[in-house]
């Protein structure tokens, strides 16, 4: 009796989880299936074709936009890793007068919503620094928005590395730079990976910064390109789904490979 009841409960649980999977995956199944239909096939619901892809490459400079996305995302991720590892090393291990306060101030940066600073930021980048429609402008803004959390993550990670290791190396005549390069960086590869994965997905998927700072079709990212043709409402649904699939693919691949790092970074806020 007890075992039967337990079996029924567990089957019920399994069933509920299956229903949730359908709800969660259905939109993606729809996206993938629709991406391989012509407009007529989409309406009738039967058959597959590659018309949508021809249409997509016709209306959107897909290759250029993928290159733009890659350059901007890679640039920003590299910059974030540089400033968050050096900064994390300084805050966790070296210290300086007022380093505690400075660290707190940088953490406070996490509380600033992008939209609250977007207007002065836009004016500064576009009209003062003249970096509008240049990769560098967007890269800097993405880096500034991503760096506070990355610095927090790296600092927490470096705090876990015993100070004796650094002191011993310094006693042996290593410079602080050498300690950083030969000891801290190799030891923190897992944390760096987490930062890179989190930031890659966030920046690749972003719309607002790209929309404002890379508005010229030549430098647009794939996410911006897609959002703009969607609002134009002239492109058929299968082509839009093909574009969605293409733009989502890199981030999904990164997700599938680095799922564990992503989860780690996400739950960092409560666990450590």
């Amino acid at each position, binding site marked *: 009796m007890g075992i039967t009841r337990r079996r029924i409960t567990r089957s019920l*649980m*399994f069933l*509920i*989880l299956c229903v*949730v*999977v359908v*709800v969660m995956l*259905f*939109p993606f199944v*729809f996206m993938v299936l629709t991406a391989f239909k012509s407009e007529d096939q989409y309406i009738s619901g039967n058959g597959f074709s590659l018309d949508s892809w021809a249409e997509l490459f016709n209306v959107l400079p897909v290759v250029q936009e993928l290159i733009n996305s890659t350059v901007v995302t890679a640039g920003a991720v590299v910059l974030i890793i540089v*400033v968050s590892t*050096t*900064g994390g090393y*300084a805050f966790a*291990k*070296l*210290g*300086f007068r007022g*380093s505690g306060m*400075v660290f707190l101030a940088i953490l406070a*940066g996490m509380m*600033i*919503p*992008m*939209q*609250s600073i*977007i*207007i*002065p*930021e*836009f004016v*500064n980048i576009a009209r003062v620094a003249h970096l509008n429609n240049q990769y560098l402008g967007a890269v*800097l803004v993405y880096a*500034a*928005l991503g*760096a*506070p959390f990355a*610095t927090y993550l790296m600092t927490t990670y470096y705090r876990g590395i015993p100070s004796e290791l650094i002191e011993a190396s*310094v006693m042996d005549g290593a410079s602080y730079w050498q300690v*950083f390069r030969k000891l801290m960086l190799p030891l923190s590869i897992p944390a760096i990976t987490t930062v890179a994965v989190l930031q890659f997905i966030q920046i690749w*998927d972003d719309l*607002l910064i790209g*929309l*404002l700072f890379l508005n010229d079709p030549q430098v647009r990212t794939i*996410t911006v390109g*897609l*959002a703009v043709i*969607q*609002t134009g409402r002239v492109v058929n649904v299968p082509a839009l789904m093909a574009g*969605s699939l293409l*733009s989502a693919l890199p*981030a*999904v691949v990164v*997700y599938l490979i680095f*799922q564990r790092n*992503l*989860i780690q970074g*996400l*739950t960092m806020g*409560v666990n450590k």
Partner: protein
Amino acid sequence: MTTLSTATDGAARGRGRRWRASGSRLRTSQRRAGLLFAVPVIVLELLLLAVPIAQAVYFSFTRWDGISSTWVGTANYARLFSDPTFWRVIENNLLLLASIPFAILIPLLVAYLLNEHVPGWRFFRSAYFLPTAISWVVIGMVALRVFAGEGILNHVLSAFGLGFIHTDLLSGELSAMVAVAITFIWSVFGTNTIIFITGMATLDRDVYEAARVDGAGGFTTFVQITIPMLMRFIQFAFILTLITAFTALFSLIFVMTGGGPGYGTTTLEFYVYQQGFQVGVFGYAAAIGIVLFAIVFAVSLAQLRIFRSRLD
């Protein structure tokens, strides 16, 4: 013996002093290195975060077109608080706020089921978490086809013989906002589920066993043991979800509804964009941004408190 020990003590003390002297030189060079290593992140955050937020506060007291500005005192804020559209927008934010309990409770229940490790739970977990990797633009793009008049939702309803409910959520102001909120709940589902699974992994299995021995059923253990013991994780998820709702839905709204119909789905963050970049009143938009900042700041302070209590 006594003399010997005094002698060694003295020697040790002497060496200690020398050590300390070289230690302090070491300290100085360490601090200099520390400052140098911190310079990149400090400069970046100063120029692109600290300065802009200071400017945003300053310009929120001016009439500003991006080139010249005139000081107008609190006029922008006065206008904002007497602007019926602003209150309409706040209503939309409140509706998002009201959707958060669903965005917490559903993942909490599912995490509880996943934690029972029924067959395939790893696959379920990965599948639930997938939307985290997908951009809001793509999610919005698909959601649009789900909720459209001839969309998937209506097809599914008819397939189940519920065709009479035929909905066109995106055409009404309130219903469009509900559609946005549903999409939002769907999107954060995976993230919150992962947070709760992580939390449940930290719970002591013995407590469950004890409860089972005492004859408590699944639901009783869930309400009386799981939820209270996960409070810290629930708070964390709540704040994360709230900040997402108020500051990360721009792209979703941009693609799904463009803020309409009317101001039906214009939230505070979207209103900043509209007023700033579509209407072009930078000072007024800055003031809206500052209101948003104040809300997020207050919520984040609460979060910091939770952090602190954890660190102590």
